[in-house]
């Protein structure tokens, strides 16, 4: 089990390095961005392995990524967008989209609905996580530093 987790971590590290090249994240942003992304995916995998609920797993990973990116954007004084996007990308249910359309075209209505539901649920729950954390950060900012806003 620890070996599997390590392998997942390394695979997601590979993914985030690749995406950081595509999105031109470099310099001081690189290390926090790729580690946030791969830790987020590892967290999602771990939760899913132990408790077996893919939605809650994605929710927790989304929250982690959002908190990570908001914190590092304040530490490094840079837009949080770069961290957030790199972190969210491994979580995006690309496989679900593909399977849904494959099932639709092949005429398996029941499987299409099942995978479509799951895809939509994961996408919405990641969105919800980001939305909640982002709003909480804005709220904290307005409560503790009201002059800046």
């Amino acid at each position, binding site marked *: 089990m620890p070996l599997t987790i390590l392998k997942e971590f390394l695979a997601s590290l590979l993914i985030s390095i*690749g995406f950081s*090249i595509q999105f031109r994240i470099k310099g001081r942003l690189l290390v926090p961005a790729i580690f946030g992304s791969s830790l987020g995916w590892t967290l999602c995998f771990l939760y899913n392995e132990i408790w077996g609920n893919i939605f809650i797993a994605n929710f927790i990973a989304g929250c982690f990524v959002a908190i990570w990116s908001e914190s590092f954007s304040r530490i490094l004084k840079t837009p949080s967008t770069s961290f957030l996007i790199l972190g969210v990308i491994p979580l995006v249910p690309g496989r679900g989209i593909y399977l849904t359309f494959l099932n639709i075209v092949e005429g398996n209505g029941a499987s299409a609905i099942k995978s479509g539901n799951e895809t939509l649920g994961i996408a919405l729950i990641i969105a919800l996580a*980001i939305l909640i954390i982002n709003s909480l950060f804005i709220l904290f900012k307005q409560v503790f530093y009201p002059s800046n806003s």
Partner: protein
Amino acid sequence: MQKQYILRENVIKEMYNKNIINKEQIFDSANQKSYNQVDFSQQLIDLCLDFGNLMLESGAESSRVEDSIVRILKSYNRKSASAFAIPTLLLISFKNDNDEIITTSKRVSYIHNDFYKLDQLSNLSYEICNNENISLEFFQKSLQHIKVSSEYRPFTTIFSTIIVSLGFIYIFRGSLRDVIGAILTAIVMRSTFDFLSRKRLNSLFINLISSFLGGIVSEILFSINIVDNPSIIIVSTFMNFVPGIMITNAIRDYTRGDYTSGTNKLIEALLIAISLAIGSVFARILLRG
């Protein structure tokens, strides 16, 4: 007048080192007063338009663009400054000292993602807002400097696509034989995508065609028995093209109440994802019947 000048790892330091600017050019209140007031406003709004355009192009969300522009205008003491940005349009207006409204707009058509540029731009706006009387000359030179920052060669993007696909092959539990298929599919998809992107075609068409060709390649490899799971190969390659940036930015726009630009991006992201899926599914249906 000399405020504390913060040298961070950013554009300005780089420009110092390359001798593009010297320190006298950064703060000169004398130069600003010598401007005709109208000329100054015109130049300022042009620079702000350029700034906002670059920011939108490099993948910032609308509220960030609006905030930065308004803050820059306020730091130059412009009254009733306002900015409006959606992914395809940028509008800026303010009043100059004679209470004349100056306004301008720009249609933004091309969005690519460059977070290094975005970081530099946000540093620049930070410098401008935290120091009084930054000269327009400095503003302009920094923008020029940021604009020409390096582009990657085609080989680098193809290499990064391959890396990402290999990572996803492991995560989706593909076999070892799928690796070679993933490399070939990634090369085909990325080169098609880059080639068509340079022609500035419709992004839906670009995604449809590149995922279709990728699907064809992986299905052919499957039919001559080189790979085991063509669908895993397809999925792990097309994760490269999934519009994660648009989805994330759309959510962040919704958080700030920018429903226009949020919906704009969300619909585009949804259509791109659908066209990717349809392209590869169509390839599969075509070759397997």
